[in-house]
Structure formats: structure tokens, C-alpha cells
């Protein structure tokens, strides 16, 4: 038992912090700290700095650019990236599709996709949810029918973050009608430039455009873009969800938000009621930081599927980001009304907004943390069943 960070872990943290501050331009880190949406080329620029240092894909197999770092070190890295205001490496690329291709893809797919995915030369988005398949993901309907050496794909995906920025989408599609819902699902990579695909924006309550609907109308996809075996997509999706958990609790992000609270709250820090809310948030964050380390230190093979205790990180980490967003919003007081809010007319809203406007948007957008990736109610089901062994819901 070693309940503190080792000297090696501390010096790793210091080195990462120094590297990030030295190499990622201040304009990018400031925009992240102010919670503004970043221009696409800035996201790419930041990820390429991370990738150059081995920071984008440390959990990948070493043959494909991974590093031999312990899970604790990877968690430290993830925390420092967030804390320094560096955009996280694009999760769809490095945490989701990359590891699936590395584990189940053909050699040709690995050669074609992995390096560009790590370097964000190729931007992937995730096509899982459908209008009728949210928490009940296995009920998805988008069909891919095999015709010779290609698939004909028709259907709709929704809540697709960054589909309007992405080059590719990885999709769960229905290739067969198995006996059970989970059967007959396959994992398919689709080039968004293929004819028949339409991306439509969904504007969200934070005033911005991150989400989309993606429509597929008789889209022809080469059969070589199927990852692994036909009908095994559900297994791959489960594998993917069991992947990198080292930043699941968003510890560094919450830390950055709470640091910002202290920067902008001013005299409110002397207000007993406000200060107590901040004190609780800081205590919760310390607890979460250690819970995160406990979950990641308990390394399991990805094939074992997600550790059900990851659900604790998901729920608590999301709640804390929401609490921190509330503290920030409340710190603005009446200025929140005139800090600026995107009016919805223009996608290129980045320039010219007040430095505090991101706080207002972040309050609204933070409601997503208890919804996406399995709503908190689903996480509680998982905890009750998989950890506590309780019976099925009545």
C-alpha cells in the first residue's frame, strides 16, 4: 500500500506540467480556460503537440505509439492536460475508435488509420445513438446491407458531437436480425465525404453548435471498412467502453473550474454561504481525485469490459462539473445577463466575446454531464446490479 504519489509520479507530473505550458500556445490555453469553443485548427494544433510528446495515446499498444506508463501516470497526465487548459486529445479518436482498430482492425486498417487518428490528421466522430436508441442503445436500427464488396447504409444517427468538423464517423449498424437485439450489430467506419450523407446542426441551450444529426441515404461503404467480424459490433462497443478510464472523473477539469471560481469570485469568497458551497466542492473533488486513482490503479484487461465502479466516477465527476459551473455562474451575479451569449445566427462565434461569456454557456452545456455516455440513472442501475448484486428493476 502506498497511499501517496511516489517521487517518480510527482516528477512525472511536474515534467508534464512544464511541457504543456512550454509547448501549447497561451492563446489556446486561455480560450480553453475561458471555456470558449475552439477553432478546428487550434484543436488540431494542440493535439499534435500532445502527440509529439507521447501524450495523446499513451494507453495504446506501444507498437502504435503507446507508452509504457502506469495507469496512475496516465491519470496524472490526463489531469494535468485539463488543468493546464490544454484541449484533451479528441476522445472519439484516441479513447474510442483508435483502441478498437488497434485491437480488432485488420493490419491494413491499422496502417491506414492509427497514425492519422493519433495526430488528428483524421477526425472521427461517433455514430452510436439514434432517435429511438438512447439509453437502450442495442435497439439501434441503422441498416447496412451487404452488396458484394460494399455495404449500402441507410438510417439516422443523432447527438453526433463535431460531425460538422469530422472527416470520418464510426458507426454501430445493423447488419443482421439476430435472435437477440445485441446480435446483428457491426462496427463500420464511414468517410463523411461519401455521397448520400447529410449533417444537420442541432443548436443547444448553451447557444452553440456542437451536436448534429447525421442522415444516411443509400450510402455505399467499402466492405473493407468493417472493423473485425460482422455481427460482433456490440462486443467491440463494450470493449471500447471499457477502455481508457483515467480521465473519466474529469478531475483536472473540475480543478480548473474551481481554480477559476477563486479567481473571479472576489468578495463572494467572504460570503459564508457561497464559501461553504466552494468548500464542499473542493472536498468532493479531493475525494473524487482519490476515487479516480483507486479505480484506475485497479487495472483490468479491456476484455473484462468496463469496471462497474467507473460509474461512480461518471456520476460524481459529472455532478462536480455541474456544481463548479453553478459556482461560476453565480459568481457573475447580474453580469451574467450581459456577459454575452451566442445569438445562434453564426457558427463562427469565437471572436469578440467577453471573457466571461463562456461561463454562462458552460452552465447550460454542463447539464450534459449527467446525460451523455449513459445517463446518471443508468449508472445507478449499473451500480445497483453489477456492484451491489441487486435484482432486476420491477
Amino acid at each position: 500500500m502506498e497511499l501517496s504519489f511516489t517521487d517518480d509520479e510527482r516528477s512525472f507530473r511536474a515534467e508534464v506540467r512544464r511541457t504543456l505550458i512550454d509547448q501549447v500556445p497561451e492563446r489556446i490555453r486561455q480560450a480553453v480556460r475561458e471555456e470558449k469553443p475552439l477553432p478546428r485548427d487550434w484543436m488540431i494544433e494542440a493535439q499534435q503537440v500532445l502527440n509529439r510528446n507521447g501524450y495523446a495515446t499513451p494507453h495504446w499498444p506501444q507498437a502504435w505509439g503507446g507508452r509504457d506508463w502506469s495507469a496512475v501516470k496516465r491519470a496524472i497526465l490526463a489531469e494535468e492536460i485539463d488543468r493546464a487548459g490544454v484541449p484533451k486529445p479528441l476522445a472519439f479518436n484516441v479513447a474510442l475508435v483508435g483502441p478498437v482498430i488497434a485491437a480488432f482492425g485488420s493490419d491494413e486498417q491499422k496502417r491506414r488509420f492509427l497514425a492519422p487518428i493519433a495526430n488528428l490528421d483524421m477526425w472521427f466522430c461517433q455514430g452510436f445513438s439514434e432517435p429511438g436508441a438512447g439509453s437502450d442503445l442495442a435497439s439501434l436500427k441503422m441498416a447496412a446491407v451487404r452488396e458484394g464488396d460494399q455495404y449500402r447504409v441507410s438510417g439516422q444517427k443523432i447527438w453526433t458531437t463535431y460531425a460538422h468538423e469530422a472527416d470520418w464517423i464510426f458507426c454501430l449498424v445493423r447488419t443482421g436480425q439476430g435472435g437477440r437485439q445485441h446480435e446483428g450489430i457491426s462496427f463500420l467506419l464511414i468517410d463523411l465525404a461519401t455521397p448520400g450523407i447529410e449533417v444537420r446542426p442541432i443548436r443547444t441551450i448553451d447557444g452553440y453548435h456542437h451536436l448534429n444529426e447525421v442522415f444516411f441515404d443509400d450510402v455505399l461503404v467499402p466492405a473493407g471498412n468493417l472493423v473485425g467480424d460482422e455481427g460482433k459490433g456490440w462486443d467491440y462497443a463494450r470493449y471500447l467502453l471499457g477502455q481508457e478510464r483515467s480521465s473519466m472523473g474529469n478531475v483536472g477539469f473540475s480543478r480548473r473550474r474551481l481554480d477559476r471560481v477563486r479567481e473571479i469570485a472576489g468578495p463572494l469568497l467572504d460570503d459564508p454561504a457561497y464559501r461553504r458551497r466552494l468548500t464542499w466542492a473542493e472536498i468532493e473533488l479531493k475525494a473524487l481525485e482519490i476515487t479516480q486513482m483507486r479505480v484506475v490503479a485497479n487495472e483490468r484487461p479491456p476484455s473484462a469490459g468496463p469496471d462497474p465502479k467507473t460509474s461512480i466516477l461518471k456520476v460524481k465527476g459529472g455532478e462536480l462539473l455541474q456544481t463548479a459551473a453553478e459556482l461560476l455562474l453565480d459568481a457573475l451575479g447580474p453580469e451574467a445577463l450581459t456577459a454575452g451569449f451566442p445569438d445562434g445566427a453564426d457558427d463562427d462565434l469565437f471572436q469578440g466575446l467577453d471573457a466571461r461569456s463562456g461561463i454562462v454557456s458552460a452552465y447550460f452545456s454542463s447539464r450534459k454531464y449527467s446525460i451523455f455516455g449513459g445517463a446518471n440513472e443508468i449508472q445507478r442501475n449499473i451500480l445497483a446490479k453489477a456492484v451491489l448484486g441487486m435484482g432486476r428493476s420491477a
Partner: protein
Amino acid sequence: MNFEPSEDQQLLVASVARLFADHAAQSPPDPAAQWRDYREMGLLGLPFAEANGGLGGRPEDVMLVMEAFGRTLGRTPYASSVLLAGGLLETIGAKEMLAALIAGEGRPLLCLHEAGRRYRWDVSATAAQAVDGGWILSGAKIAVLDADVDSLLICPATTADGLGLFVVAPGTAGVTVERRPTPDGRHAANIGFDAVRLPPTAAIGDPVGNRAAVAAAVDGAIAATCAEMVGAMEKLLEITVDYLGTRQQFGVAIGSFQALQHRAADMLMAIEQARSMTIHAVSMLDMAAEERGAAVAASKALVNRAARFVGQQAIQLHGGMGLTSEYPAGAYFQRLTVLENLFGDTDHHLDVVEAAGGLRAA
């Protein structure tokens, strides 16, 4: 970081779990025999340095022991005497009293609280005056857990030179011990000192450094209490989940209802966060006083809140059964409530954290 118990620690956990389970099953309990068992297993010397006759155990070893203690609702004065008073004796270098404690021959208790001062022990209305041939101690202490008329007491008192620590032997003239049952079936005492004459040797430690020594001992005891609470909460959740799986209503086990499952999941999350914060407290015990104090206070605040939530919800989920004293859930709730109060309630510890400037990251 590595949260896995070592082989030695696993052995320690297995043997104390067995011992504490045996003790819990004793009817009637034999406290003297239990204390001998503690001595034979090395628990009385566990937290103390080898140079002081102890086993040189680490705070995380104590954490593991106290977690097992909490799971079985242990009743011995281990925390109050060995961890709190013993910890203080080691810090101030009172080697003879410490040796007697480790040998199972003396069981000192620290009298921390006074009426009307809530949890602030650092300023003492109880005072000691130096006189020819010794001291005169006057005042009163309250809520001394496990104290009885035959207890060996360590009493902090204000002196001309600072905070004194005075050893008061059982049966000393002028000492009154009013013993009361605590809600968890143990006892605590209010103790009066009416112009008690003490010999010069009664003063131990050093009035200049005693306050810091008591603070360190209290912080160690708080971390241990957090571990005890985590053990008790975890066991209480197991009892509750078992009950939900057994109790049938509307033709099904009530544990199949989602509302109750989600409540249990919330209890689990509260316990896991409490466990993490306990680990934090334990890992900070070697740090400088202010940093240590803030970390320990933050931990007790969060563990307290978890204990209140888990305790109350366990009773709620047991329905009427939770209100009966024959069912074990109530005993865990009672113990958790006592421990929540011990060394400071939630608001007190939040005040401590805020006075230290909050809990910011390094």
C-alpha cells in the same frame, strides 16, 4: 500510488477480522479477556515506533484495523486509549506510561472536551495551579468516551506556562466521575476536578509544545475514526442490501424496485467517496500541522456527511424493522451517529478547513 494491501497487511486484516468477530459473538462480553487478546495480537503496540516498544506499524495499518473494528461494532477502548491517548504519550515522550499501555497494564484516556466549548479543546477553562509540592487542578471535562471510575486520565488544563497535561490516577480525591450510556451502547463520562491535589510528577509533556502534540494525536484519532466509520457504513450497506433482497412485498423482493436500487447506489457512492477521503487523511498524517489539520478536517466532514446519509437511508430502507433495536441496522446507525459527533461534527470541520484557507490543490 498503490492501494493494494501488502501480504502482511492482508494477514493483519484477516486476523483482526477473525478476532473482532469472535469478540462480537461473546456473550456476555469479557472486556478484560478481549484486551489481553489485543495485547497478544500486538494491537496495543501496533501504532508505536519500535524504539518506543511498539511494532512500528504505519497509519495505513491502523486504518485497516479500524475498518475491521467498525464492521463488527467493536466495543473496546482501542481508539480512545491506544490511538488517541497512546498517540499523545508517544508524541510527548512519556515513555513509561506508553510502555505500560503497550504491556496492557495501563489504559489512559484523554479528557478533551468541556461544556459550552463544543469541539474546541485547545483553550481549556480547566486550570492547574502550581503549589508547593505539586499542583491543584480545578474544572470539569465532558463526554470522555470509555471513561469510568477506575480510569487513568490525562487532563489538559491551562497553566501559567501554557497548556499543561496532567495525569490523574483512579481514586484521586476530588475527582467525580459521572458515567452515562452513549447511544451506541457504550459509556462516556463527565468528570469533575474539584481542587484536586496532584504530585509534581503528574505534569507530563511540555506546556509550550502540548497543544501541538494534542493536535497531532487528535488528527491521528480522527483519521482512525474515519476508517472505523467506513467499515461500519460498508457493513451497514451490506446488511441493507441483504434485507432488500429478502423482504417480499407485492409478490417480489423489494430490492427489485428501481427507487430502492438507486438509493442503495447513492449509499455506495457516498461510502466510496468516504473511503477515498479516509485514505487522504491517513496519507496526510505525516505532513506539517496546518496542512495535516485541513486534510483531516476535510475528511471528517465528508465522512460525517456520508455517515448521516448512509445511516438514515439504511433505517428508511428497512422500514419499521429499522426502528427496532433487535435488528442490527439500528446499532450501526447508532454507532455512526456517535462517531459522527466524536472530535467534531460536520460544520465544525468545515470551519477548520475554511480557517486554513480551503482545500486547494498543490
